């Protein structure tokens, strides 16, 4: 076994961390930007808007990520005249897909808030939009943090599929190193440890935010 060359390859694997971070943070960011308004509209708008938004959610939740990547990289973007890099395409596709999942997270959080709060807001002279923005969304954001941390962990591991269009993230680099060094297991273990650390740091961040913003009395044990 060529362990010395494996050590030489370690920086190459770690370099993939930046790509993985770009994919996950970009995907989560776009997903949040799309997911929050869609989740809110699905909860509070009319049935026609709900139907259209549910079609978007259904498409992006039911289509495998690899199909979406191919569809956008080789189909949608070139046909509308956009020649985007594999990394940007991957971030957008991960974002659109995460947006579908996040919209369901926010919908669930918004629906868990007692309707009486909106009625109380009306009685104070607030409009529906004011009530949603000032009363329900701030609470929904806090309630949805544990589910968002779950979405982060899933997105981190799903991002490995982006190599099919040329993005060299951590897991792909581990595979390349495994073949270059002839060591089958250790590079994957290293990638696994890196991903575990990234998951731990991310989850810790979400947990800290949750603890700092938790609504007193809403959920016990925090």
């Amino acid at each position, binding site marked *: 076994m060529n362990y010395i*060359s494996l050590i*030489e*390859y*370690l*920086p*190459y694997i770690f*370099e993939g961390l930046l790509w993985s971070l770009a994919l996950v943070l970009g995907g989560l960011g776009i997903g949040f930007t799309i997911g929050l308004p869609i989740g809110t509209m699905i909860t509070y708008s009319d049935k026609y808007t709900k139907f259209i938004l549910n079609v978007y959610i259904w498409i992006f939740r039911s289509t495998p990520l690899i199909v979406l990547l*191919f569809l956008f990289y*080789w189909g949608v973007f*070139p046909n509308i005249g956009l020649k985007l890099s*594999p990394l940007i395409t991957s971030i957008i596709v991960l974002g659109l897909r995460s947006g579908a999942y996040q919209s369901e997270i926010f919908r669930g959080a918004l629906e868990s808030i007692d309707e009486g709060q909106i009625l109380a807001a009306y009685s104070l002279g607030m409009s529906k939009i004011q009530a949603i923005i000032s009363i329900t969304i701030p609470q929904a954001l806090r309630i949805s943090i544990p589910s968002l941390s779950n979405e982060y962990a899933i997105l981190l591991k799903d991002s490995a599929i982006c*190599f*099919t*269009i*040329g993005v*060299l993230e951590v897991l*792909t680099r581990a*595979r*390349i190193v*495994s*073949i*270059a060094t*002839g060591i*089958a297991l250790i590079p994957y273990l290293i990638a696994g440890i890196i991903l575990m650390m990234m998951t731990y740091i991310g989850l810790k961040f979400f947990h800290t935010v949750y603890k700092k913003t938790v609504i007193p009395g809403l959920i016990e044990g925090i």
Partner: protein
Amino acid sequence: MKKLRYVIIGLIIGLIIGGFTGYIYRGAPESTEYSYPKGKFTYPPSSDIQVTIVYGFDPEYPPFTQVLPNGSATGFDIDVINWIAKKYGWKIIYKPWDWSTIVDALVRGDIDIIASGMTITASRCEKIWFSIPYYSYVHELVVRINENRSFDNILNSGEYIAVQIGSTADEWAERLLKSGYKFKKLGLNSYVEVLDALLDGRASAIITDSAFLGPYLRKNPDIASKIKVLTTIGPPYTYGIATRPEDTWLRNMINKALEELMNSPEWDVLLRKWNLSG
């Protein structure tokens, strides 16, 4: 209001019927055989333009193409392309790409050539065209050193035979299964994993190719002492450099350079450097 509704419904029905009729009675498509549109490298570029070739390769195929710890590309095919690029003064952009989608990446213009131990096959030639062949290899059935059974006995044992998924060795395993042999196929991600499966006993034999196995065993004599090639399978296969069908100029330039390189002493130096001779 009612009239307007009827007009709109009539228009929609008309469009649907018209669309279907047009689709059914559409003319036969024009023959595209040998009439590829002008491509990026169909004709020689003007002399003041720096030719830049985006070179797609599988980073997981040593000794032909792999990456160094600093992320740069290395291997026999990389050296060949570098030699060609130096001869013509081309600039090369190296782009590692997943093997499963590399042909589509070439067809759609993400990369301009593939030189990564790519076997010339009839099915691939429907989408991409190859240079002259530059390396040939055979498929081999490999077993552990203490294996005493014959080819037929192993292939009819019902035991696992490992192959790399999507490789030409995988195609051979499928062919052997279709021809009536009774074994279980163990599909793995890479030849290294396939070899591992043989060494740790998960597979009784493996199907691999001499292009991978020969150099690998010369580099790892400890593994070479634990396994043996039982027999070869099928005819020899050849590697070529893939280009888009319409890139005639590029292909001709590559062919000219390859011919020159293969007839020069440097070719043997390259083969020896990457353990590919003998």
